[in-house]
């Protein structure tokens, strides 16, 4: 939390540009945006809630419907950023966690897609999905493209 707040403060100081009047979490390839289908009523999410969704500890939206989390491949820079800042674990740690879960048959991990566009594509097709993309793809996030950004608290 402390680190997220620090980033937010830094962003506020050095990059006053904002879309939809909301604060940016990060910018560049190493940063990420959390995105959902434009039909999703969610505007902002608790970080802990998001982490639980990606660990599949939470499987349903507060309103209704199954949450379908979408991951990026382990080598994507946004993945490591997302892991560290949202899941509070390294990519390796997350992988280890999922290996145990997979082979003990308890659950399967969120699908890992190759790149931002595949993620966007998937979310557009699945209204209940949630994913993240790298800061570089920020321009594509528009209601016209069928996706919207979610503010992380």
């Amino acid at each position: 939390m402390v680190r997220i707040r620090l980033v937010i403060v830094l962003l506020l100081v050095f990059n006053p540009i904002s879309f939809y009047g909301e604060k940016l979490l990060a910018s560049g390839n190493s940063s990420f945006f959390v995105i959902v289908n434009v039909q999703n009523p969610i505007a902002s999410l608790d970080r802990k809630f998001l982490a639980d969704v990606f660990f599949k500890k939470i499987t349903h939206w507060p309103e209704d419907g199954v949450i379908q989390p979408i991951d990026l491949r382990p080598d994507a820079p946004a993945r490591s950023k997302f892991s560290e800042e949202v899941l509070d674990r390294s990519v390796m740690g997350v992988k280890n966690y999922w290996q145990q879960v997979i082979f003990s048959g308890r659950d399967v991990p969120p699908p890992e897609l190759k790149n931002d566009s595949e993620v966007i594509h998937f979310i557009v097709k699945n209204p209940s999905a949630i994913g993240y993309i790298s800061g570089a793809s920020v321009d594509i996030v528009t209601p016209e493209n069928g996706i919207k950004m979610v503010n992380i608290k």
Partner: protein
Amino acid sequence: MRLSFRQKLITIVGATAFAFLILICAEAFLTNRMAEQLTKIQKHYIPILEFGPRLESGFEHLRRSFQDSVAAQDKEALEKTAAIKDSFLNDLAAAKDVIDSAHISALREGTEAYYTAAYTVSHRLIAGDTGLTLVNEMSLMQIKQAQIENLLKASLALDRGNLAESFSAIAQTQGTSGRTLVFASLTGLFVVTLLSLWLGKSVLLSLSGLSNGLKRFGRGDFTQPIQITSHDELGDVAQEANQMAERIRGLLKELESFSYSVAHDLRAPLRGMMGFSTILLKDHGSILPAEAQDAVRRILASTKKMGELIDSLLNLSRLARVEIKKKPVNLSDLAQDVLSELMGTNPERKVTMNITKEIVVDGDTPLLRVVLTNLLGNSWKFTSKKTEAHIEFGMKYLSGGAVYFVKDNGAGFDMQYVGKLFGTFQRLHSTEEFEGTGIGLATVQSIINRHRGEIWAESKPEHGAIFYFTIAEKRELKRREKIYGAKLTIKQVTNRTVILVDDGIATGATMRAAIKAIRKMKPLKIVMAVPVAAKSVCTELSKLVNETFCSETPDPFFGVGIWYESFPQMTDKEVQEILKQSKNLRR
């Protein structure tokens, strides 16, 4: 039931054996049932306990080997999983006796499918070949895994219900066995006890009847046969004893009539001998030479002697036939009479006599006179050679009751020959020494026996002899009870003071009985009050009561009667009258 002891005994032994047999059979059956349950457990559950963990850990090993190879990104390790899978399949095949074949083949197929899926997933994970389809492969693998795990669980599940049932069946059988054992033992014990009591009771009953009957026979009372109540061995004995008694009775009768007729028939020629010898001596004595006169006199004396012998023999046989008429007899007075007569025959003899006063018994006066005449006569006779003769008549209380005795300091006899003493014509002394017929004591014994009493003697040569005899009094007591109107019923004694009064106490037997009877009714206290009593008896009885009043305790005591100016025997009528008055008083 008409069973002999042998049969009863066999019944008891048979019943016991039968009970044990049933018990053993029941136990064997129950033990067998327990063994069956245990075998079932051994055959079915033990292998599952063995194979279950082995197969479960085998599959776990396979699963972990995939996980480990992925974690290590190790393709070689991934290839080695095939061997682990084969080892698991081998274990599975080995469990064919424990797991049914359908489950085994399902498990085999499932394992192969799981292996393929897990291999694909692992391979793709190691290769980094992630993507949407991998998730599907994973799901497939997980489904297969779940299937195998469920199958294993189902095949190896200890059927807890069945196991519990088996154990509860064993426990139940054990309980039944224990209860059966206890119940059967108790029942058997009960039955055997009952049977034994039945046998014992019949033995004791028969024995007491037999014993009473034989005692009666022993006393010489053959009038009633032994009642035969049982049809067992003792019944046979009783029957034989009865037959014996019947024979003895017949013999006795024969003997009596024989001796009577003999004596009677012998007297006739004897009278002839006597008469003619007397005529010969009186009428023709003068012409007979002195030697012939003496011979005739000797014939006469012998004839006289023989007459006496026949007389006593006749007496003896008559005694056996005469009916006894019992009433109170003062033996002391009788003894005094007899001794006075004896004194008359030899007034020059110096004899000290000691007769206890007031000895009264129930008996036949003429017969008891015969007894005393013989006993005192013997004493008189056998003390004839003593310068200081002592003859004593008295009574003692021995354990059985009153015993009367005649004691002297005469010639006595050797106890070695005591058995011959009471035999007919048996003599321990020669006629030259002491005259006699040898029939007196036989007569005495016969009379005493007819009084249901006993006679015996003690002696030492030259130290005198004592003859003891008893007279049964039971009959008299019964007679009195009958005449005086049933038993006196004494009521309202409990917690009251009872005063027992009598005219005096000699031996204390009556008072002792009265104290005993009253004590049973639990009075508050008992006071004994008598005007005169023997000192020692009074002291002794005072220990049995709470308070004692013995006004006079003279020593020597002799008897109650001598301390009264008038001491008449009460008639039955007087007694009845007094009892009547007392009944009215009580009301």
